[in-house]
């Protein structure tokens, strides 16, 4: 190693300026090479491969290993999916879920960000630390805990509803005994709880980002507006929001991307891939491919549809980030 470097030093000393420049020019590409190979092989190649696979009928692992033929079906998988009324259910679930979650996450996150900005130092630190906990908790264990909170015998929510006065509970919900009530059985309730879990996980990032944005805005503007008698609602829409527009733009796009492909929380909450009425695109693709009987080609086609939707959203994101890189 050391003799090698010594050789490099001496040969560099002997180089003409032109040769030296050429060598230096190659160095960044050498440094990039490992990263390019890894990204190419592990991200870009599979991305192309999923498109290729979506054109074939692949129903056995032996086909994947290359031991069996790959029958070409062209757009057959796509035709199967799009002509199946179930796909509409899945698409509706996905879009409505993403829309509701982005909206709720943004509203809650922004409110908490604004709140943190107004609180006293000690209180703000305390609240921010608690908010961080929700963010830091892995999707898996966070979801397991919520599942326990909604447990049908000893869960906290079941207890809470049992604790309601029987008359009130009866007139509101038509039942007073909630023990054994399947919180996850109706699709609507399932989605409500899933939304709770996902919003709980994702609002901290919005809150912290909005807070960081607020700290970078000169506070004189807000004070001046408040002195002039503007309501908090007006101050937000006339001053805060326009100033933080780039931040909000990126946050909305990121949230949309994340909420479109929620998987872990749904998988854990539903206890696997059996609950078809609550399927969204990501879990639909996975279930078609890996629940027996496997249909890898069909699953791949669904994955391509999901990717195409997200591609559009990503386009917006990249444009926004690049514009900001230029400005700063």
């Amino acid at each position: 190693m050391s003799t090698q470097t010594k050789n490099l030093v001496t040969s560099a000393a002997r180089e003409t300026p032109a040769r030296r420049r050429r060598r230096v020019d190659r160095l960044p590409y050498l440094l990039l090479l490992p990263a390019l190979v890894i990204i190419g092989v592990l991200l870009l190649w599979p991305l192309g491969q999923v498109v290729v696979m979506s054109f074939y009928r692949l129903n056995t692992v032996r086909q994947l290993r290359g031991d069996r033929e790959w029958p070409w079906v062209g757009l057959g998988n796509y035709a199967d999916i799009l002509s199946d009324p179930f796909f509409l259910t899945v698409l509706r679930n996905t879009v409505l879920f993403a829309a509701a979650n982005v909206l709720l996450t943004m509203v809650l996150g922004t409110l908490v960000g604004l709140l943190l900005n107004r609180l006293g130092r000690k209180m703000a630190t305390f609240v921010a630390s608690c908010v961080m906990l929700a963010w830091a908790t892995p999707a898996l264990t966070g979801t397991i805990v919520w599942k326990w909170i909604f447990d049908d015998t000893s869960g906290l929510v079941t207890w809470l509803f049992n604790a309601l006065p029987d008359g009130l509970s009866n007139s509101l919900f038509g039942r007073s005994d909630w023990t054994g009530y399947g919180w996850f059985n109706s699709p609507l309730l399932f989605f409500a709880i899933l939304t709770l879990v996902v919003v709980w996980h994702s609002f901290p990032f919005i809150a912290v980002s909005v807070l960081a944005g607020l700290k970078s805005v000169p506070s004189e503007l807000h004070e001046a507006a408040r002195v002039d008698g503007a309501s908090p609602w007006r101050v937000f829409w006339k001053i805060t929001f326009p100033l933080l527009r780039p931040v909000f733009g990126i946050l909305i796009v990121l949230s949309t991307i994340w909420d479109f492909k929620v998987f872990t929380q749904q998988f854990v909450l539903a206890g696997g891939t059996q609950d078809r009425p609550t399927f969204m695109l990501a879990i639909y693709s996975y279930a078609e491919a890996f629940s027996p009987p496997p249909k890898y080609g069909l699953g791949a086609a669904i994955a391509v549809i999901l990717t195409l939707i997200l591609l559009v959203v990503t386009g917006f994101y990249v444009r926004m980030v690049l514009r900001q890189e230029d400005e700063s």
Partner: protein
Amino acid sequence: MKKVALNAAGLLVALFAAFPVYWMISTSLKPSREIFSATPQPVPAHPTLEHYREILTGNLIPGVSFVDFFVNSAIVAVSTVVLSGLVALLAATAVARFRFKLRTSFLIMLLVVQMIPLEALVIPLFLMIQRLGLYNTLPSLILTYLGFSLPFAVWMLRGFVAAVPKELEEAAAIDGASRAQTFRRVLFPLVAPGLVATSIFSFITAWNELIFALTFINDQGSYTLPVAMTFFFGRDDTNWGPVMAASTLFTLPVIIFFLLVQRRMVSGLVAGAVKG
């Protein structure tokens, strides 16, 4: 009056955010009788470590204990961290220190690939793992997570490398240090804190991942923690005490690591949007 309302709202937010974490730890310390009692105890009345003992000493299947899954997860996560840190450092140096033709294209690509829905790559990567003969092995996961964590790692490290004054390296070069020496003796020590922060993110990515681990590993002895938890605790008659103990053991390292680096998270993701 207004201050009181604000503080009350703050407490409410804090409660909502932190309660599940509190409830997880609190449940894990309660004896089963308290967990399944008709009226929940807010605080364990008779705290016990029995669930932790059960998790750490008992065998979930013959010959395999929770500790084995912990070790599997640690092997995967640490290998991912080391590999991804090394490769990311090289690439970050290239982007932060050199102006070359494809630099902007590379940066745009980094942004774009971070947005690839990884859920869409399960099927083709499953194919790749089958072809490579890596099915049922931990390296299949190390490889996968390396790909997933690398783009963000490069993106984040780029800032740390750029923050090291170039003059230091130039001074070293004038003193006769080679490029390799400058890298090792000057740049590396100064970037080390950034490397730690970046590594933590790669660690969390690998440690938390469920779908790919679920798909690539069939042999129960090679399960990572997330898979083991969904497999053994996903049943209807869940025994919540050990589940919460296992969840706590799984979550604590992540929370500790996360709190160490969370500041970078915001700046990495909203890159440049917030001028500070």
